[in-house]
């Protein structure tokens, strides 16, 4: 007995499956996004509450020097983290893909990543502080102690540490799919190892390389915790500015404008990524 569902039954099934989730997304994702946009045009009232008048004043304020400096620092941190993640992660992905116990090695790669995010960041504070392990090591060679914490370097190291697996995993997925016959063909055609790699293997890893870059760049640029704990006021990123506006400063309208701006950066990086990878690439990202 093969009964086709009536239109009413179909509607019922769609409502039951998609309905609750869709409602949730509308209430807790779409609506808040609108509220952030709305708030970004409002002003700070005398008691730190949101109030009129509406206008573009918050966006104009973004052009002031300290804020521009924070944007520059965020972009720099995102770019440097991505670069270092590529230097560490790209060769590692090849090593993992060719290893007989790669399952176990991948698990070991993920383990630090599954321990609490704050602990991973805090560990660098412990390592880099004045009486920390790194300075103890340096002093054994008669160097230092250096003031490594708080600094941009400390923020960069912790950010690299935190986001590195986001780079390795997509590249690893690409490396696993490499067609190695192309490399042999390149050798047969007389290419030397470096050229052969550059033209026969490297382009095949583009999807993973692009995905990994986006996955590291976005959170590194958007972080506030890493800079908060390891920059301790010396490194101020967009994320820190946002947190300040919603914390002590209590200027939610300006904080909302900063958030819209940060989202702009995120969408821009996703746009470039989609241009490079095609629409399908966005789905592969997650």
């Amino acid at each position, binding site marked *: 007995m093969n009964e086709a569902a009536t239109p009413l039954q179909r509607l019922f099934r769609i409502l039951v499956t998609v309905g609750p989730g*869709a409602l949730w997304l509308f209430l807790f994702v779409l609506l808040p996004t609108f509220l*952030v946009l709305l*708030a970004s045009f409002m002003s700070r009232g005398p008691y730190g509450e949101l109030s009129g008048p509406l206008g573009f004043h918050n966006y104009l304020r973004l052009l002031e020097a300290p804020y521009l400096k924070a944007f520059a620092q965020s972009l720099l941190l995102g770019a440097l983290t991505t670069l270092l993640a590529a230097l560490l992660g790209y060769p590692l992905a090849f090593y993992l893909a060719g290893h007989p116990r790669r399952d176990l090695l991948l*698990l070991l790669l993920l383990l630090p990543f599954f*321990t*609490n995010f*704050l602990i991973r960041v805090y*560990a660098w504070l412990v390592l880099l502080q004045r*009486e920390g392990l790194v300075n103890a090591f340096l002093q054994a060679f008669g160097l230092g102690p250096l003031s490594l914490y708080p600094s941009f370097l400390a923020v960069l190291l912790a950010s690299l540490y935190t986001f590195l697996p986001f780079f390795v995993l997509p590249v690893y997925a690409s490396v696993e799919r490499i067609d190695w016959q192309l490399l042999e063909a390149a050798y047969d055609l007389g290419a030397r190892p470096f050229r052969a790699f550059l033209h026969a293997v490297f382009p095949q890893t583009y999807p993973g390389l692009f995905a990994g870059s986006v996955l590291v760049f976005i959170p590194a640029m958007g972080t506030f915790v890493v800079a908060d704990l390891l920059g301790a006021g010396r490194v101020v990123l967009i994320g820190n500015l946002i947190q300040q506006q919603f914390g002590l400063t209590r200027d939610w309208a300006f904080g909302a404008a900063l958030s819209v701006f940060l989202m702009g950066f995120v969408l821009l990086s996703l746009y470039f990524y989609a241009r490079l990878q095609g629409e399908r690439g966005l789905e592969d990202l997650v």
Partner: protein
Amino acid sequence: MRRLLSFHALLVYLFLYLPILVIVALSFNESRRGVHFTGFTLKWYQGLFQDPRVLEYFLNTLTVALVSTLVSTVLGTLLALGLVRYRFPGKGFLRYLLYVPVVVPDVVMGISLLLLFAFSRELLGFPRLSLLTVILGHITFQMAFVTLVVRSRLLLLDPALEEAARDLGARGFQTFLYVTLPLAWPGVAAGALLALTLSLDDFVVTFFTAGPGATTLPLYIYSSVKLGVSPKVHALSTLIIGLSAFFLALGYALTRRKV
């Protein structure tokens, strides 16, 4: 070449494990400051277990994680099923909406929810920032991840299996309960485990949506760290590292069971 790669890999793993090992070692260190090991002690763990606040924060963390994981797994699984099985107007938009919690920096996610709760409080009189608002926030990002994980699992399934069930006379709900759900189960379990980990790990969204009395362990760690290096935090971190290792191994065992 292979040797160079091995050496590089060794360095990367050293980079990954050194910070964690230092924390674990320091949690057993007699001395309060510095990295010189002056003697083995369990006093930081004792201090941790005797602190009634830590127990309260632990229970808060657990409550949030369990409730939010349960709700987000149910919502996310249903949503994934609907997205894979049916066509309906607005489906494309819904899929984009689903990516928002995945790509948005968590600080933006935190303040948008804070704004939502503030506006709602102004207009409707609820909710107060509390464990409830933290749970609502966690469900929001967890659900997106669960949906994506379950969806990719459902896309792998052979539609012929469901057709066969219907040909044999199973009704819609019976097909779902006895055919689709068992087949999708590894995806659902992996999604739930991911949701649980994300909730236990979350600091930023919790930071913006928690009110007084809704302190979780990550919030406690943050405020302790802001005050300076503390051996009690090392002890707590070591326990959390051990638990995460356990859960990861469990997840690994689950996902290795393929169809």
